[in-house]
């Protein structure tokens, strides 16, 4: 399978604090990777390094064959644990704004992206008045807009009720079947396990284990 992300001995150091310690990983196209680990293990930092939002202190990284992840940004969808949306705008206004920034890519219709995550596209309330779970789903809709080939999702299940989490899982299964590569972090291992092709555990910035799984969810 084609390699999407290649990390070789990547370290990220903040002053005296080592957030990532010689991480080497290879992510292949069309697979779902679940990143596990306690708080401060380096999960979010790893996602931000792959997204090109942080530069590694040491080591090399290749995303879609380029050594500059910033050159591949259009092909990457990054969802942080923060919603990355304007509180004062409604969900569809936020999405229309972000879609207009991706003019060279064939973007999804904002309404279709909202429907895909199970949100009512006609909601006119500002995002600031949404529940945490709704914000999370709007944030995922923002990621889906530009139809990225690599999805980096930081804690996508947090603040979600059981039904929303199930809907999110179904969506992830669908995205994987469309040959998208997914790397997600979570503390809810039991939720993500059914869609995971590979479980990666980080401990104190290093890869502690890497387990291939037999995916139970329908492809």
């Amino acid at each position, binding site marked *: 399978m084609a390699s999407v992300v290649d990390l070789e001995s990547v370290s990220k150091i903040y002053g005296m604090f080592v957030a990532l310690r010689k991480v080497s990983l290879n992510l292949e196209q069309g697979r779902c990777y679940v990143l596990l680990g306690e708080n401060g293990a380096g999960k979010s930092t790893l996602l931000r390094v792959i997204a090109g939002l942080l530069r590694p202190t040491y080591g090399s990284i290749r995303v879609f064959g380029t050594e500059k992840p910033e050159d591949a940004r259009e092909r990457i969808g990054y969802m942080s644990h923060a919603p990355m949306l304007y509180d004062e705008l409604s969900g569809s*206004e936020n999405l229309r704004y972000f879609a207009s920034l991706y003019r060279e890519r064939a973007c999804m219709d904002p309404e279709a992206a909202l429907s895909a995550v199970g949100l009512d596209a006609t909601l006119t309330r500002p995002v600031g008045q949404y529940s945490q779970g709704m914000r999370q789903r709007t944030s995922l809709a923002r990621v889906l807009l530009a139809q990225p080939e690599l999805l980096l999702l930081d804690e996508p299940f947090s603040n979600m009720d059981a039904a929303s989490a199930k809907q999110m899982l179904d969506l992830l299964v669908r995205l994987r079947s469309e040959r998208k590569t997914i790397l997600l972090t979570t503390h809810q291992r039991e939720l993500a396990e059914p869609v995971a092709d590979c479980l990666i555990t980080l401990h104190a910035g290093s890869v502690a284990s890497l387990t291939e799984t037999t995916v139970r969810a329908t492809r």
Partner: protein
Amino acid sequence: MKPPYFLIHLAKDLRIEWRSRDAVNSMLFFALLVVVIFSLAFDPTRAVSRQISGPILCVAILFAAVSALNQAWARELRHQVLDAQRMSPAPGAALFVGKVLANFLFVGAVELLLAPLFAIFYNLHVLGNVWLLLLAVPLGTWAIIVNGTFFAALSIRSRNRELLLPLILFPIFMPALLGMVLAISAILTGDSDPALWIKLLLGYDVIFTTISMLLFEIVLHAE
């Protein structure tokens, strides 16, 4: 035809400000306080008024603008919206220009509301070419806004950013402040020709707008 990126950012900022009115309200309140307090403190004659109005107007605009500029990137920082913008293919310079234009319009709106009050409180009768004010004030305002927006972006990752912005901005803005004060005073009193000061403001604006646009991409993607 798709609108240019900076217009997309500008439209978004205008829409958000229209809904919240955060920047305009805080600036208007602050500028009004400065104008009223100075008029009560000095009780100037008509001639003295013309001498001190320029500096007071500039001080009111400067401090009011700084209060808004400190919050210029707050919405982008909240919920990490700036990261979503960094991930997008839109150029950083367009984000900067959109933000500068939005801030310029907000400060311009405050100036328009302030102008009649200023004339009343200071009993102003302009002796020079009044239309030149339409050049001097916007050029001076642009100088504050373009530098203020740039340095506000530079200091967003700093813990003491609200203190840092005036500390960096004021020394760099000093030549433009001097030009703005002298141009406005020259127009109000009619004693001298403001052309030199207006040219200085124009040159300052061109230089600092170009430098800020060129450097903004680095500031935006700095860790």
